[in-house]
């Protein structure tokens, strides 16, 4: 009892002292930096949302909840994984919680749903996950910056790797029938075909398909490999059915097909899958090892796309807040710092932000192997400093229509 009240008294005294102490910074800065965090806690996307939350919480814990000399108040909002929810929750964060910056959201359509509102209210937003190409390409938003990747960014180098290093000539594509699936697969297809490969088949199973068996049964046998562009549960379901059918062809994949967040649920069917991503928990650098160990200690699992995306968003916010001496209230200056952070360092290595707000970063070609009893994405090749435009001229890249089911056109499809 006595100790408790003593401690309370001390705390109170501390608080009073803190307010009385002459501070160098302005009065406003005694307030915490309020970070709004858009995540998904309910419904089908909840797994990614949870990993994002773990990422930001790990970051804040490591920083002792202080960045740029100011306390951080994290306000988490559950969008429910739908566009209307994303909009309402963003309004809540901006209008009710008066946040200085938003980290989130998870899905591309959520980011697109709030795009207009972000411009209108001039709210800095750091996107840890939403990968839609045009968010940082044909419809760039000056208040938006991404810490993960554009959909096609890691798949373009994978296209070159498949054609040049692996020497594949013919590939069949199967990918989720929605924008992210189209964009990842098209990025791969374009570079693969520019390097002499041929995409001879394209299958687009609906997102909510009940049974992948009917699609596995259609895949051509006379190809060198299958490109699988899936997200969430679908990669898991597809790979299992593919191998159940005795199909032994090599599989190439997008970052999310064998992301660490889902890889932990997979079995032998994932072995050998080669994917392109901006991160792998198996990167052999001290910074990555420390990060992976910390994530394993806190949450008992390897960090992946969503975990690092959110963690890196914290890193970027901190770096920008430091650059403006903690004065995040000056939105214009803060946003400028977010868009021009110089070199950022995190578990993936060093990266920069291009003039459209997308990272220029290493892309890792990874191969699923079993090490120490668990599946890991072993890095087999690193493409340094890859831009979202790959080696193409940005102007020409942007003049062409955005990647979709039919862009680039498929000239080599065989009946």
């Amino acid at each position, binding site marked *: 009892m006595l100790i408790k009240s003593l401690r309370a008294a001390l705390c109170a005294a501390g608080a009073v002292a803190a307010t009385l102490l002459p501070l160098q910074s302005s009065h406003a800065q005694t307030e915490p930096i309020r970070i709004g965090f858009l995540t998904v*806690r*309910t*419904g089908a996307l909840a797994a990614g949302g949870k990993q994002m939350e773990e990422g930001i919480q790990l970051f804040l814990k490591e920083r002792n909840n202080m960045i740029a000399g100011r306390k951080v108040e994290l306000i988490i*909002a*559950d969008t*429910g994984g*739908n*566009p*209307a*929810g994303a*909009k*309402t*929750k963003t*309004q*809540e964060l901006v*209008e*009710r919680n008066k946040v200085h910056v938003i980290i989130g959201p998870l899905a*591309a*359509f959520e980011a*697109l*749903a709030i*795009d*207009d*509102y972000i411009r*209108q209210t001039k709210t800095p937003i750091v996107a840890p996950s939403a990968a*839609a190409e*045009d968010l940082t390409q044909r*419809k760039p938003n000056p208040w938006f910056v991404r810490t993960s990747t554009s959909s096609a960014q890691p798949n373009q180098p994978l296209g070159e790797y498949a054609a040049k290093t692996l020497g594949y000539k013919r590939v069949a594509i199967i990918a989720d*029938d*929605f*924008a*992210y699936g189209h964009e990842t697969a098209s990025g791969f297809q374009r570079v693969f075909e520019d390097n002499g490969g041929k995409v001879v088949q394209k299958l687009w199973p*609906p*997102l909510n398909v009940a049974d992948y068996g009917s699609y596995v049964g259609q895949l051509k046998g006379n190809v060198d490999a299958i490109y699988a562009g899936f997200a969430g549960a679908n990669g898991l379901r597809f790979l299992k059915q593919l191998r159940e059918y005795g199909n032994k062809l090599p599989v190439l994949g997008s970052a999310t097909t064998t992301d660490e967040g889902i890889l932990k649920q997979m079995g032998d069917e994932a072995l050998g899958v080669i994917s392109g991503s901006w991160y792998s928990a198996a990167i052999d650098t001290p910074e990555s090892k420390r990060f992976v160990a910390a994530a394993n200690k806190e949450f008992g699992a390897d960090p992946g796309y969503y975990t690092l995306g959110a963690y890196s968003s914290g890193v970027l916010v901190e770096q920008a807040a430091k650059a403006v001496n903690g004065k995040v209230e000056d939105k214009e200056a803060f946003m400028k710092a977010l868009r021009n952070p110089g070199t950022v360092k995190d578990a993936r290595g060093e990266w920069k932000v291009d003039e459209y707000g997308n990272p220029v970063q290493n892309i890792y070609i990874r191969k699923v192997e079993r090490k120490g009893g668990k599946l890991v994405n072993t890095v087999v090749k690193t493409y340094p400093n890859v831009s979202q435009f790959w080696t193409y001229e940005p102007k020409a890249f942007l003049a062409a229509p955005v990647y*979709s*089911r039919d862009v680039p056109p498929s000239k080599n499809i065989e009946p």
Partner: protein
Amino acid sequence: MNRRALAVCAGLLVAMPFVAGEYYINLASQILIAALFALSLNLLVGYGGLTSLGHAAYMGVAAYVSGWLFLKFGFGHLASAPLALLVTTLMAAVFGLIALRASGIGFLMITLALGQVLWGLAFRWVTVTNGDNGLSGLTRPMPFGIDLNGANAFYFFTLIIFAASMVCIVAFANSAFGSVLRGTRDQPRRMLALGHNVWLVRYLTFISAGFWAAVSGLLFVYYHKFIHPQALGLTNSAETLLMVIAGGSGTLIGPIVGAAIVVLLKNYVSAFVERWTMLLGFVFLFIVLFMPDGVVPGVQRLWARLTGKGRAPQRGQP
């Protein structure tokens, strides 16, 4: 509802923006939009006894048509809004022909199927709908040159449309047609024997329900300035049906109360309760067990019992 209560409600609604913060005003706009949508569904469910699980189709199609006309042809709102309403109403006229081949669970299933077909179309017909990326870059109208981008202005715009629609819907429900409609719900055979064309009554109701859903769809797309296939999805349809039933189907206030409950739980309470979907489930269960006709009739009955006067209102009375 008596006049005094109505006046108090109207006063509160008008005064709200002057006391509440921007966030709450936007929340109120959303409740009004959801309420109008629920009211339109209530015409079918509450008055017609036809349970639809595909009503979001009309809301979504109106929103898509309006957005598409703007993005593709640069139509202004003065042109796109009536066109969107017209297209959606015509669609309801066609769908009604199909859906009203059945009643009961058959009707529920046809509406669900039609809704799912449109949802699939919105997802898949990328050249028009832009698929999963949705239509963005839309605008709000500027009636008489008033900018509706602010929370207050849009709230009043929504309130006016809502009030006008409400007047029409009340008139509809209280008209002779409304009584016949209720008759077809409770005693379809007798109404048939009395010489009423039950099918036609239901058909006309189906079309007007589609029309009012389209109106709410326009408000929805003006509010969000974005439209995504999820707006036509089964979840949206089911949620709205739940609003109607939870509030009290076949009453005029019930759907509004139901909309308020669901919107507040989803958007406001979810900031404090992490497992809000579960809470929503329990709220529905609570309502159904203790107020089986919905909140509004339940409260009215409770009130009547407490004050000891008046009979308990019957289902179907406004």
